């Protein structure tokens, strides 16, 4: 496994290649573009680092919006910013459509123990997480799937929303600020441990 510094360096290298390559990337097909993503997000859909999110099987609108926001700087990332800056709107749509069709990988994270799950359920009900992320935390459209995501990534993002360092969804920041800090660990463990394959496929 790459250390985080190596990982960032590799990504940045790819980004600079892109920048230097300029318009050439636009002519390449979606598979080639997706190979770049695999560097960090995993060739088999399992990210190489637990701070990097699963994007295989993620909701399409959500993936598109994140790329859009990385490009605009609304979501800040030294790694994703330069990469997304090379994409036109259609590239973002294409990549989102490509990755949403992939099967979400099973990361093998354990189901949360009942006391942790109960605490997480209480926190989720209090601010109405399922109102947007839906019944099984599968998300939809521009709302992210949370179920089965890396626990460390989930925890980091909730805290980043809370302290404003992730600034591309003020509604989420507000909800995280209204959530007691001690609830984030149970929430992240609970969500990370959910296996929801059997519930997918209804509707959309």
């Amino acid at each position, binding site marked *: 496994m790459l250390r985080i510094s190596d990982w960032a360096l590799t990504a940045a290298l790819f980004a600079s290649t892109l920048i230097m390559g300029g318009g050439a990337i636009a002519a390449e097909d979606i598979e080639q573009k997706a190979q770049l993503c695999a560097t960090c997000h995993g060739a088999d859909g399992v990210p190489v680092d637990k701070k990097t999110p699963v994007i295989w099987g993620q909701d399409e609108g959500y993936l598109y919006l994140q790329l859009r926001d990385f490009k605009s700087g609304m979501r800040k990332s030294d790694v994703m910013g330069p990469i997304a800056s090379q994409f036109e709107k259609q590239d973002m749509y294409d990549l989102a459509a490509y990755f949403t069709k992939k099967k979400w990988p099973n990361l093998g994270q354990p189901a949360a123990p009942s006391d942790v799950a109960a605490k997480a359920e209480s926190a989720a*009900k209090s601010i109405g997480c399922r109102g947007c992320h839906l*019944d099984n935390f599968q998300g939809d459209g521009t709302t992210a799937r949370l179920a089965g995501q890396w626990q460390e990534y989930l925890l980091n993002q909730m805290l980043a929303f809370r302290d404003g360092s992730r600034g591309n969804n003020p509604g989420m920041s507000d909800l995280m600020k209204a959530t007691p800090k001690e609830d984030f660990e149970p929430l992240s463990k609970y969500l990370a441990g959910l296996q929801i394959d059997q519930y997918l496929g209804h509707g959309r």
Partner: protein
Amino acid sequence: MGSCKTAATIAGALALSLAGTTLAMAGDETETVATTTTREAPVPSVTQDMLSGAATDTQNNLHTNLNYEQTRYYQGKQINKSNVEGLRPAWIFQTEVKESLETTPIVVDGVMYVTTSFNHVYAIDAKTGEQFWHYKHKMGPVTTYCCGPNNRGVAIHGDKVYMGTLDAKLVALDAKTGSLIWETQIADPELGYSETMAPTAVDGKILIGTNGGEYGIRGFVRAYDAETGKQVWNFHTIPENSVGVWATHDATGKDMHRDIEAEKAALKKLGDPYKTLGGGVWQNPAVDLETKRIFFVVGNPSPDLDGSIRPGDNLYTDSLVSVDLNSGEYVCHFQYIAHDVWDLDSVSPPILVDVKDKDGKTVPGVIHAGKTGNVYVHNRDDCSLIRFSEAMVDQTGMWTLPTPEGAKMLPGANGGVEWSPMAVNPDLGLSYAVNLHQPMTYHVESSPYPGGKLWLGGAFKVIPGSEQFGNVTAVDYNTGKIKWQKKTPLPMMGGALATAGGLVFTGEGDGWFRAYDAENGDVLWSFHAGAGVNAPPAAYSVDGKEYIVVGAGGNTQIDFKRGNNIIAFTAD
């Protein structure tokens, strides 16, 4: 598949206990888009005369709320107080979508058109529950919606059915085959626009509003040409001058604790916030055919809880509004809560009914149930308020201002009465509303307009461990007094149907669907549907036999158990 297992379970149960009941379910359809036609439906021809006469039509259910007046008062008496205890399922149709159901079925000449979450439409034989066709909307990648992927139903006109979609389109389908005839992009979903309400068909127009009050939209109600899908008129629910009169008290005279001086300073600094002020419209307008005016209610301002960056009354949020049917021009409005910072807005559809004015004279009225938990009674001429009802729910602490730490106030942000439509029994002079009691704390945070992202300006937080419940309440709209009230174990969301048989039907989040005595609230019949009954019931008849129909799919917004059943009941 979970749905098939459920079907088998229900089929087994019915075979044991319900002789003569048939069970129909959607087949194993693997397409991701478009229409599956099992067999063509009889071609309807829904004329304007039929739509206008829906109030006395006991065969069909032509409108989401039964008639243009939206009374939800079904004039059939075959199912009544004396035989309702024998009500039983005639059929159960299982949709492909196991997700929140807020839909009201439309029925024409024995064919039912019913929608689900994610914009599926089914045409079903209303007598047997067998499928004619199934339309699955090809959803765009970007959808931005609050409170679940709901849809509240279709409108019908001529030989077409009409539906608004989560990706902010209006689609027209061939009622015979379910094939798409036209679609119109109403607004940009990337900016927070979506459609969950059922449209209304009238005089060759299709009327529809928009969701998005949680995303900084500028709300509207529009008319589209029923044949072509071209826009006929647009009414902005937020005028360019949204400031108003700096009202300090709500419609019931309670002080809202506004800091008018601070707001005036903010107005000077920031200007009028109308471009991102919200004002979604969640439910059908009522149509006054005599005066050719429509009446609808407008939802909350954006951001929900932070008033500091949207100075003024925020017109016409939290208001009853009337506009001209032919032109869309403003006629009158009445604002319940100026500068709302609690999301206790106006969502339940208004009802046109004759009411007593303050002098006891009968006048054309409009009534609306607020998330505040009050029923408001208006004069239809000028939208003025005649009276408001006793509070149907606890309003302790109203209007405590939100704080960063969270301030407790009742009712919680879901109401009172949410989007759930009321029903009325005009003979008894009663309106029937379903309410929530959900204690919450209101938190405020400030952030600039985020370009179509969730923009609450804080948070509403259910207080963990607090007792929650609901009620069904009958209000005498000529006096404002509560005639009867029945407590329910869970907060109520779904809506009511009243009938000339002396009954009121409504469902609960734990799966119970009940009939109440319209006069005193006694529970006369109950059926457990296996999932939350959070959709408004409807009634119709085929071959002289009456049916009550309701969706049991649970609810996303308050997280009640999901299901996928459309259940039709008969009494013999």
